[in-house]
């Protein structure tokens, strides 16, 4: 949950925030494909080294750190399971290359989390929706997407209030066996669902009253326009991808950092 929460958009006025969402998404995809292409620690560290300045540039170090912390558990899980499984498959010899390999896989995960958190933390849903619009996704879907995001905090508040109200009536959520516990959530879910239905009716009324669907040619207050920086980032991303593919196909494998001697 904390991992998801740390992906929430944080407003800012930096180069990264102002990048065209399509370009930023391409950049994220390049990070993604490069890190999936390699299993060696050196290229993965290289990607990480490229990402860090971007995080600083976007001034979202705190948020990024939170997402890494949120991913910490899974990261350590990846490391430990890899260590254990390889240890047993390789008949009990603990060598440095094994440690390096597990570290590389963990690093890959962290690089992936970083690239996606950087994208979501710095891209406003409004811009995302514009990008969807450019991709010719029908406006109704787009509207649903924005509305969903708009009502996340509202529904979260409401769920909390309902929970408080029912606990004040003596409802104990974490009491009883598994089935009872599920049943305990009924008094919370029902009002939440009923309120949401009521809310959706009110929303529909309000939409009508604001001329929703009045014209086929709906306009948008914001527009996407690529500027020089966008083009530059686009070119650099593509070059990086080409370089990575070239390295993968034609260059010798990357050197190992830790060697392959025994750990003990």
């Amino acid at each position, binding site marked *: 949950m904390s991992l998801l929460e740390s992906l929430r958009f944080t407003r800012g006025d930096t180069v990264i925030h102002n990048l065209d969402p399509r370009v930023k998404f391409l950049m994220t995809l390049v990070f993604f494909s490069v890190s999936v292409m390699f299993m060696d620690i050196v290229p993965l560290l290289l990607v990480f080294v490229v990402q860090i300045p971007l995080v600083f540039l976007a001034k979202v170090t705190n948020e990024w750190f939170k997402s890494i912390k949120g991913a910490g558990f899974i990261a350590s899980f990846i490391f430990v399971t890899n260590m254990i499984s390889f240890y047993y498959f390789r008949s009990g010899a603990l060598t440095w290359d094994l440690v390096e390999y597990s570290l590389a896989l963990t690093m890959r995960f962290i690089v992936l989390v970083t690239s996606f958190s950087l994208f979501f933390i710095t891209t406003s849903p409004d811009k995302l929706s514009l990008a969807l619009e450019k991709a010719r996704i029908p406006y109704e879907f787009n509207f649903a997407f924005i509305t969903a995001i708009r009502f996340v905090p509202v529904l979260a508040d409401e769920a909390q209030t309902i929970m408080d109200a029912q606990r004040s009536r*003596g409802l104990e959520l974490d009491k009883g066996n598994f089935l009872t516990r599920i049943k305990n959530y009924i008094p919370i879910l029902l009002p939440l669902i009923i*309120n949401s239905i009521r*809310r959706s009716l009110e929303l529909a009324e*309000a939409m009508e*009253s*604001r001329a*929703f669907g*009045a014209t086929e040619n709906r306009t948008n207050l914001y527009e996407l326009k690529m500027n020089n920086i966008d083009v530059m980032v686009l070119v650099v991303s593509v070059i990086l991808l080409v370089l990575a593919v070239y390295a993968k196909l034609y260059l010798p494998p990357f050197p190992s950092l830790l060697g392959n001697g025994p750990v003990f």
Partner: protein
Amino acid sequence: MALIEVKDLSYTYPQAEQPAIKNINLEINQGEFILLTGPSGCGKTTFCRTLNGLIPKFYNGEMTGKVIVNGLDTADHSTMELAQHVGLIFQNPDNQIFALTVEKDIAFGLENLGKSKPEMYKEIDWAAEVTGIQELRHRATHELSGGQKQRLTIASVLAMHPKIIVMDEPTSFLDPVGAEHIFDVLNQLNQELGITIIIIEHRIDIAAKYVDRIIVFDRGEVRSDGSPEEILSNEDTRLLGVGIPRILTLAKRLKDEAIFDNNPLTVDHFYDKICTVIQPASNKNIKPPFDLDELSGEYHHKPLIEISDLYFDYPGNVTALQGVNLTIHDGDYVAIMGENGAGKTTLVKHFNGLLRPKSGNIRFMGEDIKDKSVAQLARKIGLVFQNPDDQLFEETVEKEISFALHNFGIKESLIEKRVNWALNLLDIGKYREKSPFALSGGERKRVALASVLAWDPDVLVLDEPTIGQDYGQKERLRHFLMQLRTQGKTVVIVTHDVEFVAESQPHIVLMADGNVVTEGSTKQIMTTTEALARCSVAQPEITRLFTRLADYGLPNDVVDVDEAYDLLNRKIREARK
């Protein structure tokens, strides 16, 4: 021709047996500022929905008669077309804000109409300016306060340049200062831009001085229609359960003295008139030789809830309480007041352990509540939340009320008894087998209250019990609270409703910025103007009058109509001698 013409309008909701409104004939002219009022369920909201065609198009159902708005028959034009002539604003601002930023939300209607970018920016600039939210333009909509959200909804509708703006209880989620602010904006739209404004509102004391016409609905029909002075001084209106401003009630009781040729709606007006009759006194503000209140003091039983140095932060380091110290005694009747965001609800959620302090401690009956569960505490301290819809979920009212009793493990035979008792106490016995969702708002509120009272807690805490309630419902609540007090219950209410407080006279705790500013009896608190201003609490009308009458040898700590009448009556007789 009138701007809005309604002819023989009747409408029945689908599957309803009775018409929601019937035989309505009205003419509304350009530039009017109209208040629609009447008891809950009288058809006001239904009427508003006919003005932009939501009825009958969105709701279906059966409509007869005609509604013509700005020359357009609503039967022949779609809601999206009518939206450009009539801006309809609903009660809950959250359910009509669609965008993630303020500016984008103002643009929503314009985008739908296919306006060009420069046009939109022009309209946004103008609408934001007029409603005073210019500096919020780039803020996220979910970060706004209630008052700001309400102003945003006005701006969003205004940007489409409607000739008429219709608002359904725009101020019910706001504190009095926020409410005043909304009325100022509406007044400006009306005066400077000539926009016709129609509002539904229960807070007549605030609305009366702005509007120039009041239409009273009752059981789906127009009961009366006229100027505020005329309508509000009509005995019929009072009997319907419409809240009459206290200052007018006072004037009417002094009527025998023939001071007022027409009925004063504002304190200023009343003051000007009364000053022509009574004379300033040389001995200012004489107190009676001994003050009964001070002599007896406020008699306190033993302390029940003791809070010391309570600090609390919400996640994300949002400071909510900053060192609250408060003691509530057994049998007290306490009102916690202050502006939105002062920490009132946060504080009462500590009473039964829903929230746990960051530091400081809370004692209940002398024991620290740190190690007690919410369920254990709730058994003794009943919390009733603001919105009944946040807790009702059972199939029948009876099951709803017994829900908590089962949770507390009360014996089956006793449950039966307690449920009957609660049903009778709140006069909802006839709904026993009905679904709580089939009831009206006021009835649902009573079911929620009954569902807490049923387990007979020692302390009853009510969060904003008067919100959205009409005058009659408030009166019933007030009597009910008095009844509970005579049974020795401790009652705590969180409220903005100054007039409700003035009539029931609790011990008041004023809060601002997560702290208790001051506390004392209603009379004491309502005369400490500085603290009141700091907490955005307005003085009751009667107190405002007596504050101004200080030079006339009258006490300034008068809060209710009865006392005010006695004092003024005596004064007038003295002057006439």
